[in-house]
């Protein structure tokens, strides 16, 4: 009996150790409280908003918690330059950043906008870049890192399918210009700087129309 209980205890301890190795330690309920300042832009459902010609607010719902947490850290440190977000990131304690990240990661994904007016040709070009790339210009396909459906891979490669087109465009331009440089190992800079305006518009439009989850 004692041995049995010991085994159960050991198994529980082991499974805890395994799950905590990858999962972010945050509390979704606390995160929901801390996120009251976020909803003005990112909306109550975490779906954000596409703003044509302006600064689009990304959909956060369903993104990886570790990815979201890292972005908040980087916005605070300035490694990810976002004047809008730095102020809000500064308002959150480290634990609150984790809580908020866990909260948004658990919300069901919301479909993005911004690709509605894209032409058939643009969408075909965007699809090619996202799924096959353009190796003659060494633009590797998005899916090679962001996952087979571009819905994200692990903590470092966020889901981009179903994200707002305006936000994807802004980020690709931000990497290209150096305004955003918190991508690990310059992985996004390398690709973004090989893309022209036509590529960026097309891939953002196509991705925004793909299922987010």
């Amino acid at each position, binding site marked *: 009996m004692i041995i049995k209980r010991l085994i159960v205890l050991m198994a529980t301890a082991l499974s805890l150790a395994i799950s905590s190795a990858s999962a972010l330690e945050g509390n979704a309920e606390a995160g929901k409280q801390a996120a009251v300042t976020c909803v003005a832009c990112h909306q109550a459902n975490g779906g954000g908003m596409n703003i044509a010609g302006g600064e689009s607010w990304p959909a956060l719902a369903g993104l990886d918690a570790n990815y979201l947490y890292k972005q908040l850290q980087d916005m605070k440190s300035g490694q990810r330059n976002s004047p809008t977000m730095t102020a809000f990131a500064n308002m959150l304690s480290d634990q609150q950043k984790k809580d908020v990240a866990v909260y948004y990661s658990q919300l069901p994904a919301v479909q993005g906008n911004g690709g509605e007016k894209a032409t058939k040709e643009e969408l075909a070009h965007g699809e090619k870049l996202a799924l*096959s*790339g353009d*190796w*003659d210009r*060494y633009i*590797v396909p998005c899916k*090679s*890192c962001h*996952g*087979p459906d571009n819905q994200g*891979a*692990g903590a*470092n490669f966020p889901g981009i399918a179903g994200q707002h087109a305006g936000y994807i465009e802004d980020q690709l331009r931000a990497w290209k210009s*150096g305004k955003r440089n918190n991508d*690990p*190992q*310059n*992985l996004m*800079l*390398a*690709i973004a*700087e*090989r893309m022209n305006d036509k590529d960026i518009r097309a891939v953002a439009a196509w991705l925004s129309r793909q299922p987010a989850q």
Partner: protein
Amino acid sequence: MNILKKVLIKAVAGVFVLSVGAVQADVKVPLNIKQPKEGQYVHVPPTMEDLEKSSLHPELKRVIRRGYDLFMNTQQLRGKNVFNSMNCRSCHMGEGRQPFAGPVWPAAVVLPDYRGKNDHVNNIEERIAGCFSFSMNGTPPAYGSDDMIALTAYHQWLATGVPIYTDGKSIYGRGFPRLAEPKKKADFQRGKQVFEENCAICHSEDGSGLVQNGKEIFPAVWGDRSYNWGAGISRHFTLASFIKHNMPLGQPNSLSDQQAWDVAYYINTHERPQEPRFEGSAQKTREKYLDTFHKHTSYGLKVNGKVLGDHNNVGEKDFLKPDVLRPRTYTAD
């Protein structure tokens, strides 16, 4: 007509190579892809868009599309022919068209040829069978089967216009061109550091890659889900060249030659599924294929206190050696 097309293709190749060189001054992550040398044979393989526009028979187009699909998503054969995390495109980057990334079209024009690895003349099907047996740790689709013909048709389509028996040594970017020997002997610890700083983000610190929702995302570079001890890329010089010219993804030629040798040695000095040509002991098998192969691998060597390959682990499959790996004599039966 054909000659005109050839000239055009070469002109396009020239523009591509030049444009890559020209923009390097103002880019932050340069490609540094080597230019063709005088006298090298440059071929820019046609794309799948070109296939749609071509005048090939619709049924042939369908078969080539099938070959392309198998090439890009070889995991659809998992458990049947593929028993690890690899796709053809994992090593043959850019749809098998990319120079310095094991472009596959040369196989359609330099074979049949003698191959030291199995000491007889191989045609393209047998060459592809080698990939399945070693790199995919599996067993090939049967010779002459629908899948095998689809794969060879895709190879041949990529080789469109290349003269048969073009001198393999003259082909620009063929295979994984061997790097100069490293200044310092390749080192496990230095390699570990290179791996953790540059590769682990995708391939993970334990080399297992990434599986998510049951799908292979990033291939395993050692362990049960990786290539076996007989795979060409388990040779240090092959992996060093692959890495130098192709990794990290999107950043070719960003590591130094020394880093490429070190990290290749590190990766290939980890356990992986048994060599299909296993003769009962790793040392004995190493000895038998030493000159033609294993003098370039860590297989059968004692490293960090353990003999590598000294086990009966064949990975996910339930056989050691596919039946198609056999000697040939080309004399009357």
